[in-house]
C-alpha cells in the first residue's frame, strides 16, 4: 500500500516538451509511471517519446481525452502559477509542482484559490513523490529507493535522497516518499501527509525531514503527540545556520522568534519523536 500515488496514477506532464519536462518524462516512463499525456500550449497534436505520449494545448483537453488524475508541472517559475490555476480549474485532483523560484505573492494567491477547490497541491520547489515499484511523479532518482513500510515526508530535495539511500543500504524501503518542498508558502504540509501515513496500512513507521524556518515542524509535533500511533523518526537541517540577516521587525512580530533547529528538535522530542543527529543515523533509530 501507499499514499497519493500508485499503479493507478494516470499522469499528465505540464511543460512536457521543455528540456526538463522531456528528460524527466523519459525517466518517469522508464520507472514504470503511467504517463498518459503532456501539455504545452501551441504544441497540441504533437507526440513525444517516439509517438507514445500525446501533447495537448491545454490541461482541460488533455484531461478530457485521457482521464488523467494527477499532473506534474515542469514549467519555468514565471509560468508556474498559471499552470497551477489551469490544473485546478480543469479539476485535476492532485497537482505536483516541481518548479523552484515561484514568487511568494503568487503562491499566496494560488494557495488561497486552490483551497476553494477540491484539489491537492504538492510543492512547489519540491522533488515530487515516489511509491517504489509503482509510480514516480517528479524527479526523485528511482534507483535510490526500494519498496518497504517506511513513509518518508520531507521539505528538502537532495537531503531526501540521502535518507532514501541510507535506508536502502540497510535494506529498508519506503511505502511512499513525499517531498512537500521548502518554499514559505506551499500546498500540502507535514500534517496532511502524516495523517495519510497514519491511515495507510502499508506504512508502519514514518520519517519526517524538516529544516529551519517557519512553524510547520512544531505543528507536526503537536499532531504527532495527539494523533499518531505509528513511530516517527526525524531529522532537522540547519542547526549550524547563523540567525538570518534580517532588517525589518515584522518577521519577529509574526513568528515571535520561532523557527530555529533547536526549538523544532525540542518540540519533536517532547512529542516522542526520535531525532537523528545526522541523516545516516535514521535507519538505526527506526529499529
Amino acid at each position, binding site marked *: 500500500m501507499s499514499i497519493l500515488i500508485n499503479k493507478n496514477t494516470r499522469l499528465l506532464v505540464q511543460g512536457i516538451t521543455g528540456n526538463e519536462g522531456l528528460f524527466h518524462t523519459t525517466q518517469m516512463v522508464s520507472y514504470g509511471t503511467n504517463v498518459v499525456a503532456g501539455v504545452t500550449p501551441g504544441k497540441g497534436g504533437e507526440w513525444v517519446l517516439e509517438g507514445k505520449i500525446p501533447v495537448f494545448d491545454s490541461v482541460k483537453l488533455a484531461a478530457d481525452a485521457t482521464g488523467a488524475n494527477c499532473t506534474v508541472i515542469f514549467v519555468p517559475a514565471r509560468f508556474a502559477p498559471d499552470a497551477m490555476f489551469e490544473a485546478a480549474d480543469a479539476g485535476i485532483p492532485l497537482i505536483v509542482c516541481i518548479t523552484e523560484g515561484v514568487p511568494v505573492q503568487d503562491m499566496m494567491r494560488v494557495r488561497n484559490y486552490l483551497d476553494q477547490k477540491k484539489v491537492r497541491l504538492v510543492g512547489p520547489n519540491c522533488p515530487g513523490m515516489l511509491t517504489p515499484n509503482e509510480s514516480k511523479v517528479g524527479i526523485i532518482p528511482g534507483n535510490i529507493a526500494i519498496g518497504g513500510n517506511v513513509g518518508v515526508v520531507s521539505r528538502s530535495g537532495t537531503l531526501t535522497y540521502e535518507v532514501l539511500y541510507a535506508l536502502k543500504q540497510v535494506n529498508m524501503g519506503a511505502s511512499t516518499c513525499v517531498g512537500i518542498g521548502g518554499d514559505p508558502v506551499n500546498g500540502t504540509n507535514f500534517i496532511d501527509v502524516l495523517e495519510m501515513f497514519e491511515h495507510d496500512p502499508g506504512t508502519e513507521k514514518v520519517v519526517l525531514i524538516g529544516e529551519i524556518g517557519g512553524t510547520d515542524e512544531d505543528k507536526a509535533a503537536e499532531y504527532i503527540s495527539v494523533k499518531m500511533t505509528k513511530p516517527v523518526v526525524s531529522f532537522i537541517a540547519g542547526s549550524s545556520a547563523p540567525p538570518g540577516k534580517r532588517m*525589518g521587525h515584522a518577521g519577529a512580530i509574526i513568528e515571535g522568534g520561532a523557527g530555529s533547529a533547536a526549538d523544532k528538535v525540542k518540540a519533536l522530542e517532547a512529542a516522542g519523536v526520535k531525532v537523528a543527529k545526522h541523516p545516516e543515523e535514521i535507519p538505526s533509530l527506526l529499529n
Partner: protein
Amino acid sequence: MKLHEYQSKTIFAKYGIPIPKGRVAATAEEAKHIAEELGGRVVIKSQVLVGGRGKAGGVRVAKNADEAEQFAQQILTMRIKDLPVRKVLVDEAAAIDHEIYFAITNDRAAKKPVMIASAAGGVDIEEVAATTPEKIVKVHIDPLLGLRDYQARDIAASIDLPRELWRDFGKIAAGLWQAYLDTDASLAEINPLVITKDKRLIALDGKMMIDDNALFRHSKLAEIRDIDEEVPAETEARRYGLSFIKLDGNIGCMVNGAGLAMTSMDIVKLFGGEPANFLDIGGGAGADKVAAAMRIIISDANVQAVLINIFGGITRCDEVARGILTAMDEVKPKVPMVVRLVGTNAEEGRRLLENAKMITAETLADAAQKAVAAAKG
C-alpha cells in the same frame, strides 16, 4: 533584496504616502548643501542595510547646516554592525507628537499577507511585541481580494488614531498595500509613522524587502540593488546563480540542494569543525558553475579544507567532477579536498577525479570527519 531607507521612502512617495523632504548624500559637503536647502533642523541618517542604526549612534539631529556637515562627517566614517556607512539621508526634522508602527508582510503560516500596526511604534517595537502583544494589531488580507477600506478603518480604530486622521491613514494603508503588491515586497514597513504636532501623518522611516524570486518582473528594482553592501563573493555567486553565504569557519563546503548543504554544515559542526560558508550549486549545475563555486570557496583565505558533497539526481556527478578539475587547473588550490559523490554518474565522476589527489569518502559522516581532520592539518 533589501532596500535602503531612502529607496523605500522614494517608493512610498510614489504611492502617495507623505515622507519628509530630504535627499541622500555621500559626502559631508553634500549633506551640508542639502541641509542649507531644507533650512532649519535636519536629521542625518546613516544608510546601511541593518537594523539598530539609531541605537548605534547612526542617526543624529542637527540644528543647522554646519552641524549637519559635522555630523555627516562623523557618521560617514562609522561602521554599524561591521558595515561601513557610505551614504547618509538628510531629512527635514519633524515635530513628533506620537509614533506608530505600520507594516505589511507575508504571514507564511496563514498563507496570507498581514497588515500589522501598533500605537507603540518606534525603535522598541519588538520588545512591545514580545512583552505586550495586545498592543499589536494584525489584520490578514485575502490575497485574491486585496485590502478592503473597512480593514484600514478597523486598524485605525484599534490603534486609537484620532478620527480626523482616519481618512489620511486609509490613503496611506492603500498606498502601502499597492506598493507591496507592485514591487513583490516581502516587507513594506513604516516605523515610525508619526503624528506631527500639527496633526499630520508622515512616514519618517521606511524599510522594504523585495522577493528575489520576483525580480524577473522588476528589472528597475533589480538595478538599484546596493552591491557595496554585500560581501563581494556573494555578488559573484549570484552572477553564476549560486546560493552562497559567507561564514566564519575554515571548512569550505560545496553541496547540491539547500537542505543537504545545511545538513553538511551541521555534520561538520557535529564533528568539531566550523563551516566557512553555505554554498548550494542548485540542481543540474554544469561544469562551469561548479568551477565558479570552487573559485569562490578557495578565494576565502580562512579556508583550510574543502568538503564537496554531491548527491546526483538532476545534477550529474561527472559534470561536477569536470568542474572541479577545471577549477583546480586554474587556481591550483593548496588546501586538502574531501569529495563524496553519490547518485547519477557517480562512478564516472570518481574515475575522473582519481588522479586529482583528493580525499574520497563513502558516507556523509565519513566525509565530514575527514574534512575536519584535514583542516586541522
